[in-house]
């Protein structure tokens, strides 16, 4: 005799509910109860959940129907989604594979000086450049150069794409309050959703051997800060300067290119810095779905309990993170310095 039987009979729904003679055990608790020969004694008033209501009325869903429903719905939509998404995202696979090939094919005696030169160009800071050179050599000495380059190639592609999409989205958000209101909850969702959860629907949609699978997961996670800070940066531009731009008859496009973007640049750069950091964080998790790089070694360390392998790879990731952070931050301060506010 289930608790909610009375409720359904007073509502006159007993007939609609049908015979509750469902004898199949529903859960482990039921099985245990049956084995023990007595009814499972729950709390005095059971919470009106699907499962509890189902005991009184067959027509009511069970909770497992909800999860099943989501799964079936997703599987039903999958062919349509796949036909649309597959061609659109295919270039991402090519880019990731291409970058991976390029970073690996480039001989180290060209690649290392190139990276050092790029750090110098971006930061114009001697300590930062020396740090980059030393760090890469450290990684190379413990034979982690190749995996580090794999990780770097993924970050390179994902950050570039995040910036290419994120900055225009941020600009559009700064122009329209309505768009901002509708996009912000989505960004909140992307940022708070546990990173593993991204992977589940993606695994259903694409095959695990495709590199776009981890590419999309990384981009979805890492694009958020660059969108947010572009929007914020443009909205924070000094209104007096905007008024001057209007007073001298600038077109919207001129205003954007000559005033808003340059003045928002420090904020946008801060967003890019965050985007790089977040794609690095995600690239480790993405190794679960065949992303190559340092993450694979970390995973190996966890799986096989190879402490040393995991820790060396972990330190490698830290080094990479510090390199990327210092170079992009130094670039940021350099940009900031040329436009001291009055």
């Amino acid at each position, binding site marked *: 005799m289930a608790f909610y039987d009375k409720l359904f009979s007073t509502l006159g729904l007993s007939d609609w509910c049908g015979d509750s003679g469902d004898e199949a055990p529903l859960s482990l608790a039921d099985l245990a109860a049956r084995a023990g020969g007595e009814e499972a004694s729950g709390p005095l008033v059971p919470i009106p959940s699907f499962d509890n209501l189902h005991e009184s009325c067959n027509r009511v869903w069970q909770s497992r129907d909800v999860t099943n429903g989501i799964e079936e719905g997703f599987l039903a939509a999958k062919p349509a989604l796949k036909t649309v998404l597959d061609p659109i995202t295919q270039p991402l696979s090519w880019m990731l594979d291409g970058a991976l090939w390029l970073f690996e094919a480039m001989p180290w005696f060209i690649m290392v000086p190139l990276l050092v030169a790029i750090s110098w160009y971006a930061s114009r800071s001697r300590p930062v450049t020396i740090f980059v050179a030393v760090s890469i050599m450290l990684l190379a000495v413990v034979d982690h150069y190749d995996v580090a380059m794999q990780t770097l190639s993924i970050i390179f592609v994902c950050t570039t794409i995040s910036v290419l999409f994120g900055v225009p989205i941020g600009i559009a958000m700064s122009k329209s309050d309505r768009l901002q209101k509708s996009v912000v909850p989505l960004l909140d969702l992307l940022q708070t959703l546990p990173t593993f959860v991204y992977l589940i629907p993606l695994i259903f949609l694409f095959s695990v051997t495709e590199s776009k699978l981890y590419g999309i997961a990384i981009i979805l996670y890492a694009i958020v800060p660059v969108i947010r800070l572009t929007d914020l940066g443009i909205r924070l531009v000094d209104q007096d300067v905007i008024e001057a731009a209007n007073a001298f008859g600038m077109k919207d496009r001129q205003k954007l290119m000559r005033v808003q973007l*340059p003045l928002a640049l420090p904020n946008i750069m801060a967003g890019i810095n965050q985007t790089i950091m977040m794609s690095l964080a995600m690239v480790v998790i993405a190794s679960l779905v065949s992303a190559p790089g340092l993450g694979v070694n970390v995973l190996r360390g966890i799986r096989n309990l190879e402490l040393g392998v995991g820790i060396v790879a972990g330190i490698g990731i830290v080094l990479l993170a510090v390199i990327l952070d210092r170079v992009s931050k130094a670039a940021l301060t350099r940009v900031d310095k040329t*436009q001291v506010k*009055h």
Partner: protein
Amino acid sequence: MTQPMVSLSGLYKIFGARDKDVLQHVKGGMGKEELLAQHGHVLGLNNINVDMQAGEITVVMGLSGSGKSTLIRHLNRLIEPTAGEIIVQGEDVMQLSEDGLRHARQEKMSMVFQKFALLPHKTVLKNAGMPLSVRGEPEADCDKEAAKWLDRVGLSGFENHYPAQLSGGMQQRVGIARALSANTPIMLMDEAFSALDPLIRTDMQDLLLELQKELHKTIIFITHDLDEALKLADHLVILKDGFVVQQGEPQHILLNPNDPYIEDFVSDINRARVLRVRSIMTPLVGGKVPKDAHGEVDVNDTLESMIARSGGDTSHAYIVKDGEQTVGTLDMTELVRALVPRVASEAGARQS
């Protein structure tokens, strides 16, 4: 009288969502406080009718909240009016299309701002040339024109500095050079010198007058400083709570204030420095020139210079000349009387 360069008539501005609806209350005579209390709308401008003549400096003066900055932003429609007409060079600004308005802002009116509003990431040279480059003129021309005006405002040698490296006064010189390089007939100056310290401000006022002598622009100048207003104005408009309390020739307003608000204002002024001989002389209407005159003075001499010249002796009298022509006589006793504001002299009369 020639057609005014800028003509505002029946201009109203009410801030709020239902501005058109509450306009009738304002037209019915409702004041700023009542409107805010009863309808939650802020009255910005109330029936403004001002003509600004070509080649003159029109100064709009008022305390903060009087609507003067709102007024100047109507000329180039940075703020849209609730009702009224804005005619610039015979053209109704309200009828302009978006392109037409942009064109007017580029070619007809340039603006100088209280907080300078320079582009911090561009050099002084590029800032000064900005109006030209907005129009799409070749960079070399922009730079050449910008350098010319920077030199004119005394900033040659600073072309490659960034605005943040300059002092406030120098930044505003860049602001003026920027407005001048636009080569527009009209210049809007929104409290352009208010953020500067007094000495620099005087320098900048002199610079403006000197430039104006040469360029004959139509300048609309906003200020809250009566001394500044009197120094610069050819035509003075005094605003209070969004309506025009009095407008006219500054000397005339100073000698004949028509409102207690203005009397309060003018009572603190150094009248000797502001008033000129022409405002207080006795015109020569067929009368004879006094034989005991101590000399000849120009109509535009200030009373201060007269006091210095006479050595403070009130028995002196002078012949007033406008160029070659004798136009009147000046008795030093008259001069001393004119130095006392009307309110003060009336108060004194009551006491005795």
